[in-house]
């Protein structure tokens, strides 16, 4: 195991805390994107689409 010196606990908690928050940020961002795409897909399935959307251009990409 690497020796991080007498204050290793501070180093480890800094990195762990940062990793956790970054992971949550990535997860939250990805989840938000998926949710909105799903919403648009559901609307399109119900026949509600944008005026400018042609059949080949689904408008949600």
């Amino acid at each position, binding site marked *: 195991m690497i020796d991080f010196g007498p204050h290793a606990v501070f180093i480890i908690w800094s990195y762990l805390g940062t990793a956790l928050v970054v992971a949550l940020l990535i997860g939250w961002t990805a989840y938000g994107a998926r949710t*909105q795409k799903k919403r648009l897909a559901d609307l399109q399935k119900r026949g509600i689409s944008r005026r400018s959307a042609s059949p080949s251009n689904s*408008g949600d990409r």
Partner: protein
Amino acid sequence: MTDASLPTNWFSRLAHPGAFLSWSRGWVLPASLLTIMLFAVGLWYALFNSPADYQMGETVRIMYIHVPNAWLSQMVYGLMAVSAIGSLVWRHPMADVSMKAAAPLGAAFTGLALFTGSLWGRPTWGTYWEWDGRMTSTLVLFLMYLGLVALWRTFEGQSRGTRIIAVFTLVGSLNIPIIKFSVDWWNTLHQPASVLRAGGPRMPGEILTPLLVMMLAFTVLFFTLHLVAMRTEILRHRANNLERRHVSARGASAARVKS
């Protein structure tokens, strides 16, 4: 006017939400992969391939995550301020999207700067916190970010709200030079500028390399998240508009049936 044709001029491609959605799709995966690679290299240097500092020992490794987060906390606010100007002066549609997407990200990075700084301060200075210029102004910045996130939620879907938020964002940007120069203006525990300063950085290469790689890694991480968040915001607008139009169309046809 041509129908459904996307603008070709480069500035219009940036400004038009539909064009933005179209060109940005191809950037998400490469940006994500670049982020992963930069963090892999940065963490390798930060944890395994750099020396301890002669004064603060191994705790210098906290600098490799604290400084990037502190840099991001200010850079993201700067980006929001520029977007605010674009929103107020030019009513640029992507400027609103950019501001809204950046706020929660900036709040998270500022929170991390405070958290890692606190954990670095305890072994280095003997205290988790000090009410000095740098730390106090960064705490104020964190509270500003949270305030802006709350304002965005309050004014969801109202264009008038965007102007108010843009004004608040610009007023708050006065804090950024205060944070940057606080270590020069006032007595502080915090060390003075050692990277972005006149005369260049004054750190040895073995310490500067992991720092710069980690700063780049965090910056690319932010831009990747910001890109995805902006795309999400445009999709949310579209879904909201479709639902609103559908509801009002149903209401109109129901009224016709009644009469």
